[in-house]
């Protein structure tokens, strides 16, 4: 029964704005990332030979000169893989090394192992590869025409959208193009594989999903999972880019390590990283919306076509989430959603913060904005007109009843706090006299569903050891990528044991300590691992309580854990002292915790159920100025109210909100992925791919975490997930730009995303209309 022991702890550490657990190491350069670890004496460095063609048959792969190059020890191709040549996480459709055919420019064909990084990277260039080129499909819309898909197309329909559209007083149709986004974690992909005795392999991997790395490596080298250990203490950023993609890197390092019998490290150069690994899906979206004179949507039809690249990867659940989020905060009674998962001869796209949700929201927000501009209304009015109701109009297109809707309250508050109405008026006055510079403003909401949509992934484990001196070793299945998961879980455990977080060692994510863990993804890290760790800690506390009651002959109710001490009736002893006494009494001081998210269920056949435990909400008002001669813009002011529930750590959550927002702004403004006609990505380094810099942060940036917002569901301390939802607040910037363009005599701007200066100028000058 102790697994569900009711928590009677107080909030001491929980709710504190503690700094990141590694902050003091980050600033000193002493936080160790995988490339900083001491290197085994026999370490080889690996580099990857990539396809130069988007689609071709491999006629001949001659690695003679590669092998002969200075410092080279060995090469590795598909035939050298002892087990399965696959690194596809859900569908086994992506090879580690290409076999007969290459399907994108950048696909791995071979690896080389050499004594130094330079030797390996130089040698790669010496390969002689003959290609027989095949026709490449480089655009999603062409893939739709050719019916080239990685997975079957999916549909959600509710009501009678055809009839609703036909009967609506107004109707609009538009095609949108929406760019993808590179994760651009500062630490590129890296893995180090170290052979151990008796067939074991220790893999250090910069991964959000050590369990998946463990299993895919095991399949690749044909060993059972028990022989593989995957460890990751921290990543230098991930953002979804290291959810499935890390496995490819780890598998290559592992295969070469097994072939050479030596430790192998593969660290991708930035350009290789950006060429070889997947990104956020770019989309072509068609919408057809019918609405009445008040702006209320009568019926809507969406067609989504996403660039999945050559394989399924995580594209199935990503595109599902697009379908689940193309309502955003709006009730769509009669709706038809068609989702194509296009197979293109480009890198296989993957998870990125929001996981398809942002693209769905982009579609509906664009339609809403168009409706308002068509009716000459304030878009905020139209947004409100379409919000989900409370107690009515509250069932999503996937038949989940929304029980925690607070969007109207958030928007009402933000409208006032940000002085939206007055500023909108002032902006219009400014624009009336400003010839070239036009300002714009927009308020957009966010409603984001929390949980993995695949129900089985919503499970987590933790392992806690209390040592004889009272210090605590904390392990859980989550990974630390900078998001502050480790400190949050430590805060939970600290309060459960009544100790300070300083007494807790945060161990690396390690598959030998916590098995079968889900990816740290879907914003679920602290929800799930926090609960699992709390359960583990509660077990230990329970045992200590029972022991203390027995030992000191007091009632259990008279025992209290707080401030590194245990209060037993009127006397007090330190936590360490009690632990030592318990050890003498042969009490187990180690426990596992296991948690599975309650209430959720979901039938993928019918796209219905309750895929989400709850929703996180937020809203943003952004104001921009646009130069209508050049298309350049600057964000002047941003106001955000975001719902983190009852925050576990407001400093960490604030960081997620601010950072997520700016990352989203990059997606919709300056970050452009550009392929040439041969299908080669030409924006593969920070010189050509432009994420926001310091000066892009608005001078006036006001972010508030919603107060008194305890989660209505029983999450860890009633907090809410915060990793992904704030990213989508960036839609306010995009629509503020649209608002500014509309004020330049372009009432219904045809603005494509990202809103680069070029895209904005095209919209200003009506070139795409």
């Amino acid at each position: 029964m102790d697994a569900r022991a009711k928590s009677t702890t107080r909030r001491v550490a929980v709710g504190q704005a503690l700094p990141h657990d590694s902050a003091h190491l980050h600033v000193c350069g002493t936080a160790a990332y995988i490339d900083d670890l001491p290197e085994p004496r026999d370490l080889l460095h690996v580099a990857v030979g990539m396809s130069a063609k988007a689609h071709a048959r491999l006629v001949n792969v001659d690695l003679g000169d590669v092998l002969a190059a200075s410092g080279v020890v060995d090469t590795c191709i598909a035939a050298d893989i002892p087990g399965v040549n696959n690194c596809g996480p859900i569908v086994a459709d992506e090879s580690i090394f290409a076999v007969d055919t290459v399907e994108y420019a950048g696909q791995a064909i071979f690896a080389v192992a050499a004594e130094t990084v330079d030797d390996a990277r130089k040698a790669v260039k010496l390969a002689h590869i003959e290609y027989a080129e095949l026709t490449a499909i480089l655009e999603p819309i062409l893939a739709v025409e050719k019916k080239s898909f990685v997975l079957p197309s999916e549909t959600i329909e509710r009501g009678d959208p055809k009839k609703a559209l036909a009967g609506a007083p107004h109707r609009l149709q538009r095609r949108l193009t929406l760019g993808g986004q590179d994760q651009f974690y500062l630490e590129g992909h890296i893995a180090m594989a170290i052979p151990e005795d008796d067939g074991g392999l220790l893999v250090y991997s910069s991964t959000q999903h050590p369990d998946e790395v463990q299993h895919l490596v095991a399949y690749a080298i044909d060993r059972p999972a028990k022989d593989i250990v995957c460890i990751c203490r921290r990543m230098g950023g991930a953002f979804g880019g290291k959810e499935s993609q890390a496995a490819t890197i780890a598998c290559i390092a592992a295969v070469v390590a097994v072939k050479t019998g030596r430790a192998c490290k593969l660290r991708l150069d930035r350009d290789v990283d950006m060429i070889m690994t997947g990104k956020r899906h770019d989309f072509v979206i068609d919408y057809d919306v019918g609405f009445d004179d008040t702006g209320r949507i009568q019926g809507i039809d969406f067609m989504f076509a996403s660039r999945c690249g050559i394989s399924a990867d995580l594209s199935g659940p990503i595109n599902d989430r697009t379908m689940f989020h193309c309502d955003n905060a709006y009730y769509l009674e009669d709706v038809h959603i068609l989702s194509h998962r296009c197979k293109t001869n480009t890198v296989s796209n993957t998870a990125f913060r929001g996981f398809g949700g942002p693209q769905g929201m982009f579609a509906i927000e664009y339609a809403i904005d168009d409706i308002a501009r068509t009716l000459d209304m304030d878009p905020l009015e139209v947004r409100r007109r379409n919000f989900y109701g409370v107690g009515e109009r509250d069932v999503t297109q996937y038949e989940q009843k929304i029980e925690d809707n607070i969007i109207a309250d958030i928007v009402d508050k933000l409208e006032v706090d940000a002085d939206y109405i007055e500023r909108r008026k002032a902006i219009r006055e400014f624009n009336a006299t400003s010839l070239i510079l036009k300002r714009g403003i927009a308020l957009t909401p966010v409603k984001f569903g929390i949980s993995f949509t695949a129900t089985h992934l919503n499970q987590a484990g933790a392992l806690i050891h209390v040592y004889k001196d009272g210090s605590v070793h904390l392990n859980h299945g989550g990974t630390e990528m900078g998001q502050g998961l480790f400190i949050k879980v430590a805060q939970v455990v600290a309060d459960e044991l009544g100790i300070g977080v300083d007494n807790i060692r945060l161990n690396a994510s390690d598959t030998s300590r916590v098995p079968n863990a889900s990816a740290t993804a879907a914003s679920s890290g602290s929800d799930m691992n926090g609960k699992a760790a709390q359960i583990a800690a509660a077990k230990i506390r329970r045992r200590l309580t029972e022991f203390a009651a027995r030992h000191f002959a007091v009632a259990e109710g008279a025992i209290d854990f707080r401030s590194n001490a245990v209060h037993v009736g009127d006397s007090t002893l330190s936590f360490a002292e009690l632990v030592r006494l318990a050890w003498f009494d042969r009490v187990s001081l180690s426990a596992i915790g296991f948690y599975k998210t309650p209430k959720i269920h979901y039938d993928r056949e019918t796209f219905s159920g309750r895929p989400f435990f709850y929703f996180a909400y937020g809203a943003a008002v952004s104001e921009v100025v646009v130069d209508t001669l050049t298309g350049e813009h600057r964000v002047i002011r941003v106001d955000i109210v975001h719902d983190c529930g009852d925050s576990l750590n407001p400093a960490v959550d604030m960081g997620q909100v601010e950072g997520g927002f700016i990352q989203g702004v990059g997606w919709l403004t300056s970050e452009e992925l550009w392929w040439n006609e041969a299908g080669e990505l030409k924006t593969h380094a920070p010189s050509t791919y432009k994420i926001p810099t310091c000066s892009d942060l608005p001078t006036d940036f006001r972010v508030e975490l919603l107060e008194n917002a305890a989660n209505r569901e029983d999450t860890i301390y009633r907090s809410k997930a915060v990793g992904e939802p704030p990213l989508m607040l960036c839609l306010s910037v995009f629509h503020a730009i649209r608002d500014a363009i509309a004020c330049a005599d372009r009432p219904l701007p045809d603005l494509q995303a990202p809103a680069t200066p070029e895209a904005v100028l095209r919209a200003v000058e009506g070139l795409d209309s």
Partner: protein
Amino acid sequence: MPMAGPRSETDCRTDTVRFVLDGEIIELENADPTRTVLQFLREDLRRTGTKEGCAEGDCGACTIVLAELNRERDDLTLRAINSCIQFLPTLDGKELITVESLNRPGNDLHPVQKAMVDCDGSQCGFCTPGFVMSLFVLYKTNAEPTRIEIDDALAGNLCRCTGYRPIIAAARAMYAEQPDADDWLRQASGTAKKPDARLQQLKSISHDAGLAIEHKGRRFLAPASSDELAEALAKHADATLLAGGTDVGLWVTKQHRDLETVVYTGRVDALTKLEVDATHIDIGAAVTLTDAMAIIVTHYPELDELFKRFGSPPIRNAATLGGNIANGSPIGDSMPALMVAGTTLVLRSLRGTREVALDDFYIDYEVKDLKPGEFIERIRMPLPKQGTVLRSHKLSKRFDQDISAVCTAYYLELDGDSVTSFRMACGGLAATIKRATHCEAVIEGAVWSAETISLAAVALAKDFAPITDMRASAAYRLRGVQNLLRRFYLEISGELEQTVYTYGRQG
């Protein structure tokens, strides 16, 4: 080939690179000429605090600080540098400061580090050491930075996690405490004492002779005079001339080229001088962009925005004006303004010197009027004449540290309403930086009016047939340059006072 002088190549030169690290003098005999400072730190010293994020000087994770002797002020000049593309021998005579240099035993954080912790300035932490080093330079050189100065100081550091707000907060909070009066590294700008011991140590390793390094058949020559440089280039026809290394560095880190002979301009006396005479700003070709721009902006304040948007501080601290010109990239941002200002280049070789107009220097893509063995010695930019206007505009996807899609510059002289002289040069529109001669012909001698500008904008289409690439389409480039000309007109006529770059950023 002219005979070399009586001295042999190794005369007076040393094969040993000497620099200071944490108070120790590091001596490297015949160091690998193209080993980067980052490789040296991470792989040889296993000082892994400094990170590699891109290996091309665009992300700042590898930022380190160089302290150099400033003989005029008898003080140190601190500069943030991208260690990923800085070659090891260029450290000679300098002090290298890395994030580890700031660390003290225990939890005794440097004020910059402490502010970053207190303000939640790190999340994943990978970019953090680089930010700490850029902030360290700001801390030591600016006692009360404005937001714009903070933005500029951090323009070369990318953070993907925080959105920068907490880092900006740290840049303001780092002055709150003034700990440890004896530790110069911890003394903020305005409170710092003269670092006598450091100066003494740097003086002890500084020398006026050159370097001549041989390493496994490859060599690094750092001549000390123009004569020696001319000799070196005459002797080694295949030599790679290295200035700031912000381009050559990538030949090594990205293209993995083996450079047989590297000839470094950074120690050549005549090339590192900066003077203003009665008529010209005279800039040695190896003067850094940071120093060159500072002097140019005092005479041409309108170029301030362009220069702030040119690369980033670490790039401008390494890169040279001569390198930008000699590289001759069609997207080099310094040349349009220099060109319309009437800048000339003093070219030097064993045959002597000659002076060419920058206008005539670029012949075709990567083809310049630069003969074998010849190098740019000095850049002579005329001082502005009373009543003339010189401006430059840049278009790119991101304001800071981006490569131009289009870069324009204009020179205008008016006599009342009529244009007595007009020059316009553009980057990003052709195989070289190029004058807009058709456009100029329309404007020069005409009435300065919106109608003239409209006609001139049409003429720009005759001047340029730009290409489409990842930075912009051909159509946008052409439309962009036409509209920038309109913007210039509106600026001159007072109808457009602000660019979006500066909008709302005062204070």
